[in-house]
């Protein structure tokens, strides 16, 4: 449904060194460097997928989103989404997509939220029935009751972001681009937004492309990850595959009573990371030793009060990926 073929985009960036002399020099002779924001990006996304689009700052995530939403014209390559080329048939195309830019606002600052919504209703020519239905659904799932009559400037960031997301979905788009939708949100709002994304994906089959720096967003939502760095696509696969690739290693933390009392607990196949008379932490390679074996050996030695088994956090996996690709 979404397919990108060899998309490239470069920007010309003016630069000069600091200082008065350099500034004067740049009046006459301006140096430009060409920054290749996207280099030959190719991927395709099927209907109803939730795809996490990740990468360090400046990797080209937002640029890709802008190309896919028809705002930027790439230098080379082709892109087809729902049968449209975004930048060529922009006005016909954008009725099918919703876009949320986490760092920007589409609501009118000085008027109540509902006024902006009414305007969007007319802009997208949403039939009154559909508008009422969508608004009711969004109000309920994003918990907007009471916010709609408030001027935007008086909303908190979390409240505003929920309204922004609602604004992007009023016209019932079948593709949703989210560019850092959870930036700056507190835990409650974040969970509400995630829940909502999952709901519309499941119930309405909306395809979601999500960029974020918050790996817990990815973990909670994305079936598939696209990793981009320095403008190139570096990884395309599921989170599970990524996990498998970078580690079968688990951290096992046990709280216990008893034991030999003196030295650390020693378990075959588990490497001791830290130890105290109440708590011990082990590293286990599940490719070689089964967790169950480790636990049964531990319980032979001491009375286990609490056990926690953790996979390597996604953050660390991503950092390893970055390191692997030297970005």
């Amino acid at each position, binding site marked *: 449904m979404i397919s990108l073929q060899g998309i490239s985009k470069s*920007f010309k960036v003016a630069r000069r060194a600091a200082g008065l002399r350099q500034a004067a020099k740049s009046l006459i002779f301006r140096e430009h460097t060409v920054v290749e924001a996207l280099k030959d990006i190719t991927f395709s996304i099927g209907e109803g997928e939730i795809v996490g689009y990740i990468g360090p700052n400046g990797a080209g995530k*937002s640029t890709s989103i*802008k190309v896919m*939403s*028809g*705002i*930027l*014209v790439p230098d080379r390559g082709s892109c087809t989404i729902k049968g449209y080329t975004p930048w060529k048939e*922009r*006005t*016909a195309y*954008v*009725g099918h*997509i919703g*876009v949320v*830019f986490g*760092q*920007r*606002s*589409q609501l*009118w600052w*000085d*008027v109540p939220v509902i*006024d*902006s919504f*009414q*305007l969007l*209703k*007319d*802009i*997208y*020519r949403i039939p009154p029935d559909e508008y009422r239905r969508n608004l009711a659904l969004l109000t309920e799932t994003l918990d907007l009751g009471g916010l709609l009559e408030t001027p935007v400037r008086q909303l908190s960031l979390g409240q505003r972001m929920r309204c922004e997301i609602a604004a992007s979905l009023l016209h019932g788009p079948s593709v949703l681009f989210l560019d850092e939708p959870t930036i700056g949100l507190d835990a409650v709002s974040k969970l509400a937004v995630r829940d909502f994304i999952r709901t519309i994906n499941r119930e309405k089959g909306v395809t979601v492309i999500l960029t974020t720096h918050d790996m817990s967003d990815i973990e909670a939502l994305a079936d598939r990850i696209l990793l981009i760095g320095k403008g190139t696509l570096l990884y395309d696969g599921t989170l599970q595959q990524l996990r498998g690739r970078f580690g079968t290693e688990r951290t096992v933390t046990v709280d216990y009573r008893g034991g030999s009392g003196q030295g650390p607990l020693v378990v075959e196949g588990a490497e001791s990371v830290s130890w105290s008379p109440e708590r011990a932490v082990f590293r286990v390679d599940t490719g070689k030793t089964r967790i169950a074996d480790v636990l049964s050996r531990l319980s032979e030695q001491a009375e286990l009060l609490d056990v926690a088994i953790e996979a390597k956090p996604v953050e660390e996996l991503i950092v390893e990926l970055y390191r692997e690709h030297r970005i």
Partner: protein
Amino acid sequence: MRPYLSVWKLRFILGMQYRSAAIAGIATQLFFGMIFLMIFQAFYSGSAAEPPMPLDRLVSYVWLQQIFLSLIMLWFRDNEIFQLITSGNVAYELCRPCGLYSFWYAKLLGQRLSSATLRCFPILLIVFFLPKPFRLSPPASPEAFVLFLAALALGLLVVVGVSMFIYISVFWTLSPVGSTLMISVAGEFFAGMIIPVPLMPHWLQTVAGFLPFRWTADFPFRVYSGDIPAGEALWGIAAQLVWIAALTAAGAWTLRRALRRIVVQGG
């Protein structure tokens, strides 16, 4: 049409919120109107030659300028659009199934009309009751009044057409200061906002005739006072229509060019 009407309406509602700005504006405009009139009156009484425009017509000219200031002034601008461009929020405007040119055009019309609605009636009321030489006279004739309304409305479309270029230029310059200053200084001069066009030397009047600016203010105000007779006014309205067509076509084309090379600023 619906989206454009809707954005016009919202901008109008928004503009109607700014009451204190309107009150301050009314005071300023009355003050400037009086100052201009006193200067011109002094010139007129000190001059032996036959003035190119009688004083009572000049009085209407100056008061109408002040009353409809927000419809004709080029410096009257929507900072929000500048911010949209320089901050990159224009990204959202580009995700809408509308032509950006018409969308902004409607927005600007709404802003100017709301401001004019708030300001024009109180000033109108006051200047009709001022003591004699400063009083605003009624329109020359009913036909003149109807033609004046048409000319003023079309003049507004010309102003917005010109001001669109200021907004579009920001895609290149990233700062509205230069283009606003240049276009508004030249524009206001040739619209007769500083010296009424009939009082200019002939060669300058010819220059003004070739530019769009005098069709925004000078022309409708002289139709009001009968300085331009009805027959000539119809030709003027035709000229306004030509200018509107030319300005919007050129503006839309330039905006399309700007969007092709757009760099959405920031993250």
